[in-house]
């Protein structure tokens, strides 16, 4: 029997080594696999190259991985955000290397890796500093830049539901980079709210087929869902209840703010 489900996040990230290239899904916080990143921090490899759209938000997830000093280089499109203080500090201190890639070229380069394309001509970035030194070509009267695939050793992906075969679905805009990264990494690891029985996912609606997925782990339901039904949150971090409640520690508060936990 095929069973890609791992017991916990630590088991799911096993094997990631010093120097690995790791893709991390998500656009801002949406689709960011926070529990897998926390497990990666626990595992401890250093000198990682991270491929992700952003360079962390607040002090959780990817930001926490950066703060822990585990990342040598990040390949992303939009590092600077209102809540990217961890990256900002490292960058200004010269402690992290940045490869800045226009977002569409970033995702197309990741797609190329997964789809076996050797290189492609894109119009995006032509004539800008981000195409400096790159091969260009005019094709049918339009100017293009040649871009190469981005492969990874591992991909950490935030999904919604999966089955033991590794079929995955996502929720709304948290889909973003997940399906593309799953195909581009040698080993793809997906965290989901819930693992469901084989056959429970509609074959017409599976977004990432199991062929792209190596490991699956359940991390429990997010705050804004109850039994798979959307119940809403009070902020974009997924907190519920009045803001004043959120500083109170204790099991109840903890359960309600798990999305924000460090």
């Amino acid at each position, binding site marked *: 029997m095929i069973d890609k489900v791992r017991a916990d996040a630590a088991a799911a990230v096993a094997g990631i080594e010093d120097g690995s290239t790791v893709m991390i899904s998500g656009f801002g916080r949406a689709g960011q696999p926070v529990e897998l990143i926390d497990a990666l921090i626990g595992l401890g490899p250093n000198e990682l190259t991270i491929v992700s759209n952003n360079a962390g938000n607040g002090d959780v997830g990817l930001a926490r991985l950066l703060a822990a000093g585990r990342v040598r280089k990040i390949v992303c499109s939009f590092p600077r955000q209102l809540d990217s203080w961890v990256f900002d500090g490292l960058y200004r201190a010269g402690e992290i290397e940045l490869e800045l890639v226009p977002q569409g070229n970033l995702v197309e380069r990741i797609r190329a890796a997964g789809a076996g394309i050797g290189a492609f001509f894109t119009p995006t970035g032509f004539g800008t500093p981000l195409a400096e030194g790159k091969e260009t070509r005019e094709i049918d009267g339009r100017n293009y830049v040649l871009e190469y695939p981005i492969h990874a050793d591992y991909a950490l992906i935030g999904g919604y539901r999966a089955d033991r075969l590794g079929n995955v679905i996502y929720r709304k805009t948290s889909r973003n980079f997940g399906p*593309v990264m799953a195909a581009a990494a040698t080993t793809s690891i997906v965290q989901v709210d819930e693992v469901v029985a084989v056959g429970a996912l509609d074959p017409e609606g599976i977004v990432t087929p199991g062929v792209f997925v190596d490991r699956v782990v359940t991390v429990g339901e997010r705050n804004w869902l109850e039994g798979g039904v959307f119940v809403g949150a009070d902020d974009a971090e997924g907190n519920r209840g009045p803001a004043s409640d959120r500083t109170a520690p204790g099991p109840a508060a903890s359960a309600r703010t798990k999305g924000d936990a460090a």
Partner: protein
Amino acid sequence: MSLDRTRLAARIARDIPEGAYVNLGIGAPTLISDYLPEGAEIILHTENGMLGMGPQPRPGEIDPDLINAGKVPVTELPGAAYFHHADSFGMMRGGHIDICVLGAFQVSQAGDLANWSTGAPGAIPAVGGAMDLAIGAKQVFVMTDLLTKTGESKLVAACSYPLTGVGCVTRVYTDRAVFDVTPDGFAVTETFDTTLEELTRLTGLELVDRTHAEPIDIVQEAGT
């Protein structure tokens, strides 16, 4: 009287026809969605993987899995569709978005756009999807003040800031006037309590006067 941000947003909204697929860039352009004609179906694209984006949710109804390109929580309208990032940027790069509206640091009279970096030493660069939007949409509208805070024209002969895209801007909506990018340079199509002479002085550019011309159906003009 020059237009403030909200009135400028309302002015731009008037030029977006029913049925258009539109991407409103991060920042001021997002204001435009509040002024789209009541009842007209205009479909908003957000590059993080959605068509049919609706307004911001009320507190308590926020879905952290449903955000726009500015990472602000949004909602889903009937007929919405989700897709992954490669499909979303293929949609942009492939010329399927009718109109995008972007902010700008500078626009050149050849239609070059600079809106992602001032090139200042020590600044942290971040480009996001700006370059894809700039070269991908059928019509690229820029929404900006005509002058910087220090009084320099954002319309320039040639951009001094790092480019976002070459020859990509269709039209520039400013607080003082609306400018079309034409083979002859900027053409003023509409002024807000100013004159062509003042605009010429402020920009230091030769401007074409089209303030009395018939309005052009721009979506038809440049549709591919």
